[in-house]
């Protein structure tokens, strides 16, 4: 069974551009969460989606948006990129949308904004 997959692995963008990151959860998992990990910090929660609906949102500006598709894969979109958006973006796959289910993280997408 495939684990959590994220694409692309690395990405370089310039300020003001838009970026789309993709995540495929583990087969059978219906919930996805997105986290941002800036260098030297722990992952910070951005969004959670369960059954294609947003279940939670962290303290991030409206430039960040996400969606989940019928096959439970997910996209994270960031508009008007800033230098501070440079980070590792992690996707977590969760069996359901409820607390205390184990979260399985993908390898992440490394975004560099120049």
């Amino acid at each position, binding site marked *: 069974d495939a684990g959590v997959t994220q694409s692309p692995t690395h990405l370089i963008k310039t300020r003001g551009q838009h970026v789309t990151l993709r995540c495929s959860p583990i087969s059978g998992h219906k919930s996805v*969460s997105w986290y941002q990990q800036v260098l030297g910090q*722990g992952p*910070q929660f951005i969004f959670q989606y369960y059954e294609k609906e947003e*279940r*939670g949102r962290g303290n991030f500006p409206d430039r960040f948006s996400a969606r989940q598709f019928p096959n439970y894969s997910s996209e994270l979109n960031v508009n008007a990129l800033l230098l501070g958006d440079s980070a590792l973006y992690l996707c*977590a796959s969760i069996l359901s949308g409820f607390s205390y289910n184990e*979260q399985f993280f993908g390898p992440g997408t490394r975004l560099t904004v120049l």
Partner: protein
Amino acid sequence: DQQVKQNSPSLSVQEGRISILNCDYTNSMFDYFLWYKKYPAEGPTFLISISSIKDKNEDGRFTVFLNKSAKHLSLHIVPSQPGDSAVYFCAAQPNQAGTALIFGKGTTLSVSS
């Protein structure tokens, strides 16, 4: 305002000895605590967890202790092995619907042989 704090950025331990990683939290509403391990170029991997109604949970070489009155938890690794060298994150989950985790900054553990 960090709700989950790992005050030691790094820890060095000799192989076979005990590694103790510490974590403090500020929010008494946290209901569940987890430890994740992260190797370079990989996502965090779940290690062990503890519910707020317990004070200890053990899984092989890994034991997590929770002191609710002190709002403190620790991860003990015995015996430490070189393969344990990684960044360890403490995370907390609030007592509410949803699955958002609140992470600490991490502690880099180096185990030398």
